[in-house]
């Protein structure tokens, strides 16, 4: 069962903003990175998933239950942090959680358990208004965890965090997925953040899903290039041409995207031809390069 599934989800505010015909499939378990540039429709998608917006067309299922705006039970087992955390500044961190606890009607012990999980137990008595940005983000995450969710929907959780805060947040999210078995749906425009955490990704551009699947699959589909170091570049280029491959000089190196050989065949052919190759390195595409490839109008893989 998919933790999140949508069918033809559409909500257009104008021709440039909103989402169009979204077919999300978020497998249960693991971390799904929902990537897209600013204005791509990530927050709109999250608001639609949580029933905060009414779709113009399409349907949403969370944990197998169909989501409707007026059906509170469809959000059982779902925790969310939408955009930045919404806190009552005049209340302490603990009381902020207590407000949600009373609304949810869950045991009192859950408050301290959630605070402990995000490392805020020591500061729980301080007013939320004096919390740093990182502490606010962690308190927001504690609010999302209060109901012991099986699905956690996080909208840009790394926004505004310093490097140390980013690392803490990343470790926490990874631990929630791996140790607690929570499916995490994480939207971000920070490619490095998603690359370090996500098992699956969806790439949204201009309200449309450009790719969805595992990160490894995507890297496989968009093969990288081979970088060669050789003392005699002229001979290397001639040999590559003989083998039916096209090499290009890049600084001191030669790069090639092998079309007719796999890596081992190519290396063997060059050595047998007596080309003095002393470096052979396959470059895997980074998520960044994949992302820009996909969000280019010509790079649609979906």
């Amino acid at each position, binding site marked *: 069962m998919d933790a999140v599934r949508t069918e033809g989800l559409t909500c257009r505010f104008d021709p440039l903003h909103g989402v169009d015909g979204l077919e999300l499939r978020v497998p249960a378990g693991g971390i799904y990175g929902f990537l897209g540039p600013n204005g791509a429709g990530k927050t709109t998608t999250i608001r639609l998933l949580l029933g*905060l*917006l009414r779709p113009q067309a399409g349907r949403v299922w969370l944990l197998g239950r169909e989501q409707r705006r007026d059906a*509170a039970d469809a959000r059982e087992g779902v925790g969310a942090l939408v955009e930045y955390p919404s806190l009552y500044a005049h209340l302490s961190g603990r009381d902020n959680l207590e407000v949600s606890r009373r*609304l949810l009607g869950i045991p009192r012990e859950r408050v301290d358990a959630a605070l402990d999980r995000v490392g805020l137990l020591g500061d729980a008595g301080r007013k939320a208004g004096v919390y740093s940005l990182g502490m606010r983000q962690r308190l927001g995450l504690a609010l999302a965890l209060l109901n012991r969710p099986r699905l956690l929907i996080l909208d840009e959780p790394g926004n505004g965090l310093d490097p140390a805060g980013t690392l803490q947040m990343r470790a926490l999210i990874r631990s929630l997925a791996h140790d607690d078995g929570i499916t995490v749906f994480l939207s971000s425009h920070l490619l490095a953040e998603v690359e370090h955490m996500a098992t699956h990704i969806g790439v949204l551009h201009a309200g449309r899903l450009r790719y969805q699947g595992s990160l490894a699959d995507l890297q496989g589909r968009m093969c990288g290039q081979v970088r060669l170091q050789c003392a005699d570049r002229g001979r290397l280029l001639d040999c590559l041409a003989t083998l039916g491959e096209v090499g290009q000089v890049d600084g001191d190196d030669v790069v090639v995207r092998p079309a007719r050989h796999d890596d081992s065949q190519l290396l063997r052919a060059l050595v047998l031809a007596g080309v003095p190759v002393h470096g052979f390195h396959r470059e895997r595409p980074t998520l960044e390069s994949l992302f820009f490839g996909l969000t280019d109008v010509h790079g649609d893989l979906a």
Partner: protein
Amino acid sequence: MSASMRGALAAEALKLRGTLAAWMCLIAPVLVVLLYVLQLAVSGSGAATGLEWTGFLRSLLALWALLMLPMFVTLQAALIAGLEHRDRQWKHLLALPVPARHHYLAKAATLAAMLLVAAACLMVAAPMGGALLQWLRPEMGLGGMPPWGWLAIQIAAMTAAAAWMAVLQLWLSLRWSSFSVAIGVGMAATIVGFLVGQSARYGPFFPWSMPLNTLAGGGELAGWLAAAGTMGGLATGAIALGRLLRRAPD
């Protein structure tokens, strides 16, 4: 009452901890009593003819109904709605597995409770103000027991008649996140209510002047205004709830 609704009410109570809104339930009635007593004590008006309890309380309640009650309702509605608007709490609240109507109903119940607490404070503060005035200016003739029954019925009628105004003000405050919209409309309506309230023809039908009109005429009009205010509040509340439930949070 469902457990979820009880939870929503308990959450509202916690949100009010240490807020101005909570203190205003005490401050507003005490302030209006103190100001009126101070004015009488300084000016000495009524000393020549003698004031008596009913006259003193009637003028005091008129001041409450005309000015302080509409302003109190305006401010309280804006403050309790502002708790959710300030940090865009609605998106968190409405994403919880709790029926959305419970959040709005809990807000209405909170405002109703605040009105009742303020009314109870006024019920205590008004005779205390009279006693203070008697101590300061014995010649005003406020001796003896205050008319407790009359005072209780009058404050109850006034509070019930304020229900329509309170619901309208709460709807405005929940619908628009801007504090100034709710305050601006409330202030303007208070002034209009002051003018309309002097008209025997239109005064009993304008929500902001209905509490004041409970003092006019006999008990029959007060009873009618209390019922009309409550019914108007309930009907408007049902419409407001339907409209708010259809609306996406900011």
